[in-house]
């Protein structure tokens, strides 16, 4: 019996509609859903091969308990009672902060998992919460809070009507425009706008595929986007090219203008390695365009001045009237009260870290701090951790330090579909579920869409027999620990009563489940009815794109966009005073990061249907640098920074900026098979091992994943061996 399910892919924020054919609980095919009114036209191989991840050969299908060097299968009852008892003992003895958590994107893409994970953390009350946002998007949250009064106001680009795209630190041919916003098929839509006369400027040290299609590629020095953007503002103010903001009231424009008078254009040009003439030209064209947008993505956020540059990008849009105007940046209010949702998902907290005394951003601390918080003795030291849908050893800086720290924990619980690099010291492995196995409405993405759109994800296949969804595990653990779920006193009794009633009456939906929360959120938004969302299996464009909601959504005290928050002005002056070179004689090259469309960070690289041709990352470098060092294409080299060293093959790539080498992140992550004590995968090398965990963007607490000073050393290896040992999956005893 074959059935067809229409849903969408949850790997990245393109949210491509999918048509899944299922037979006997097995996925037969996954195709793009051509009837999806929002995402059709977009699709990639990640979604196409999703069933290979469901059927992962190392998939966890039962809780696994570490016994010595091996793991043995266990029941959920045993797992939950053991974890609950050990956690309670640790918390009773050492306090709530002795329990730390980390979660990654796969958890965030599941609304039910995210909400109930937060429910568990609130039940326990620990402030030691860490997340992947701190190595990715924290700078946007800081800027949103400072300028719009909320950490959670996302303003996607209005690509179809744009006439001038200024895209900084992004490669939309790979990312499809998505980051903390949903713009399905965004790059093709931008190219369509280009055919109708729009201009595309890409600012990126690397000659990416996007840069090749752009009208102008500005090959900037890594980490210096802020200087380029400040230069644009300098020209705009000096030549009186700013425009009155028509959609939102602004505050502080004159303060920014004064700041631009303190700086010299030639100095900024020298810092970012771009001629003052080019800066002036881009500024004038941007300002003169009838519809323009400046977007800054991870190429910017991964630098030490990432928050500063993000802010300047927003200011540039604001002072040229690009906020909430056609072809600029448009705010979509969505169908739920997002601030309320996020208040639950990432509640405001005053918690500060023990060692570096840093506050949370969007509710969480920086991954860069985690190793020391585990290894440094004292009150508040983390002694137990749960990692849910995350792989922080590979995602974060200095993974070697974190790996060592995780090995010192009294208790490490990993929740995921396989045992990954970061889980190798785990005492308990708890199976996770794949998006094809879950249903639900992801209310968190409603305000990130570039059009009013809603889609309820349908379950395509059931999880492996006996595997609980993550939310259920988190709930059961809170109950077993006797801690009130969501931190709400008395709620555990309600949960138990609802489960009892459901069992007695034979109505499973009566037991507390994520649908309760989804329905309540949709109702509170007062824009859509839950049943109407359910009725649109291909997804629902429930309204026309409209403008003007941003002004109403502002949460600043004076209801104006703050162009000159004092902390950012201070940060700018601090950066202007800093003239230290990042590179040195010992480490003369700058390492930057890149994305690959087929890669979702460290999550999928070992999937057989992806990367059929090159199953590894490599050191991409300019021909000029290769010649200076005497390197040939495919040669294995050692990349070294003061923090670590990795071996990878060289790829010589034409174009871009000499002195810059690119290595994609997410590689070099092993998958372990707890049943057989062997590991597989480990394709490529983890380039984040080269990144220091102490040097952070002081505002976003994000490590410098872009712009790490490195050098290349030769390693002895006979050339004839290269063809065989490059990119082949390895197997080894764990």
């Amino acid at each position, binding site marked *: 019996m074959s059935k067809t399910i229409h849903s969408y892919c949850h790997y990245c924020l393109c949210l491509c509609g999918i048509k899944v054919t299922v037979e006997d609980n097995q996925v037969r095919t996954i195709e793009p859903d051509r009837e999806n009114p929002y995402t059709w036209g977009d699709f990639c191989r990640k979604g*196409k091969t999703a069933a290979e991840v469901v059927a992962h050969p190392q998939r966890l299908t039962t809780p696994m308990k570490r016994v010595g060097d091996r793991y043995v299968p266990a029941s959920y009852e045993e797992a939950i009672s053991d974890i609950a008892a050990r956690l309670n003992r640790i918390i009773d003895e050492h306090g709530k902060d002795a329990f730390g958590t980390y979660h990654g994107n796969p958890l965030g893409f599941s609304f039910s998992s995210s909400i109930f994970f937060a429910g568990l953390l609130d039940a326990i009350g620990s402030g030691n919460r860490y997340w992947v946002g701190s190595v990715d998007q924290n700078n946007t949250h800081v800027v949103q809070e400072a300028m719009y009064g909320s950490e959670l106001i996302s303003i996607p680009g209005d690509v179809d009507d744009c006439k001038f795209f200024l895209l900084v630190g992004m490669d939309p041919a790979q990312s499809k425009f998505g980051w903390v916003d949903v713009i399905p098929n965004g790059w*093709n839509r931008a190219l369509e706008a280009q055919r109708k006369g729009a201009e595309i400027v890409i600012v990126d040290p690397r000659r990416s595929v996007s840069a090749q299609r752009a009208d102008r590629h500005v090959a900037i020095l890594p980490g210096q986007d802020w200087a380029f953007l400040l230069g644009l503002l300098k020209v705009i103010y000096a030549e009186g090219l700013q425009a009155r903001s028509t959609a939102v009231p602004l505050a502080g424009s004159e303060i920014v203008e004064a700041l631009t008078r303190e700086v010299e254009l030639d100095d900024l040009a020298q810092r970012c390695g771009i001629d003052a003439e080019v800066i002036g030209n881009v500024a004038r064209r941007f300002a003169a365009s009838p519809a323009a947008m400046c977007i800054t993505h991870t190429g910017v956020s991964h630098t030490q001045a990432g928050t500063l540059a993000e802010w300047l990008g927003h200011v540039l849009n604001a002072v040229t009237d690009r906020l909430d105007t056609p072809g600029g940046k448009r705010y979509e209010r969505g169908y739920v009260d997002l601030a309320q949702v996020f208040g639950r998902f990432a509640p405001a907290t005053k918690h500060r870290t023990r060692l570096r005394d840093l506050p949370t951003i969007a509710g969480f601390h920086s991954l860069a701090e985690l190793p020391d918080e585990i290894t440094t003795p004292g009150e508040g030291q983390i002694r137990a951790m749960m990692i849910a849908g995350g792989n922080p050893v590979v995602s974060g800086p200095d993974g070697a330090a974190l790996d060592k720290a995780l090995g010192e924990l009294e208790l490490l619980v990993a929740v995921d579909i396989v045992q990954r690099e970061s889980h190798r010291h785990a005492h308990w492995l708890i199976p996770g579920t794949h998006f094809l196995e879950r249903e639900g409405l992801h209310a968190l993405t409603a305000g990130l869409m570039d059009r009013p759109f809603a889609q309820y994800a349908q379950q395509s296949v059931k999880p492996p027999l006996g595997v609980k969804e993550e939310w259920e595990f988190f709930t059961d653990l809170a109950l077993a620990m006797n801690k009130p779920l969501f931190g709400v006193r008395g709620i555990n009794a309600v949960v138990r009563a609802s489960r009892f009633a459901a069992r007695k009456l034979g109505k499973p939906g009566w037991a507390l489940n994520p649908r309760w929360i989804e329905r309540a959120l949709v109702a509170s938004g007062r824009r859509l009815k839950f049943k109407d969302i359910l009725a649109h299996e291909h997804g629902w464009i429930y309204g026309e794109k409209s403008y003007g909601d941003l002004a109403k959504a502002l949460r600043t005290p004076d209801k104006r966009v703050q162009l000159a928050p004092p902390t950012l002005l201070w940060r700018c002056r601090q950066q202007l005073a800093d003239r230290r070179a990042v590179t040195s004689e010992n480490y003369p090259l700058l390492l930057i990061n890149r994305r690959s469309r087929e890669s979702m960070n460290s999550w999928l690289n070992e999937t057989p249907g992806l990367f059929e041709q090159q199953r590894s990352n490599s050191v991409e470098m300019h021909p000029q640098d290769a010649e200076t060092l005497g390197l040939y294409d495919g040669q294995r080299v050692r990349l070294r920074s003061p923090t670590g060293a990795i071996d990878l093959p060289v790829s010589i790539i034409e174009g871009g900026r000499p002195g810059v080498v690119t290595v994609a992140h997410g590689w070099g992550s092993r998958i372990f098979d707890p049943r057989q004590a062997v590991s597989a995968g480990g394709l490529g090398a983890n380039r984040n091992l080269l990144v220091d965990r102490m040097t952070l963007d002081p505002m976003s607490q994000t490590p410098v994943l872009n712009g790490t000073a490195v050098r290349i050393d030769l390693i002895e290896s006979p050339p004839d061996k290269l063809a065989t040992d490059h990119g082949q999956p390895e197997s080894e005893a764990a």
Partner: protein
Amino acid sequence: MAYVIIGTCVNDAACVPVCPVDCIYPRPGDADFATADMLFIDPDECVNCNACAEACPVGAVLPEQNLPPHLSRYKDINAEFARGVKA
């Protein structure tokens, strides 16, 4: 709009496994793969993701609108072949 394979195709099928919608024909294993002069993209199925163009070692895949006039005939050649495969 779709991507189009031009006559410089060398049939190495580097593009076939990266296509997210499997719209490149014939595939290794298909009866006519051994005798095909070149591969073809079905314009009705192509999602313009650019993956084939990146994978092609000889630059034989171009977006339709970037075809120079002297190669524009390949647009129809691709479409006709794809129709033949599906017929």
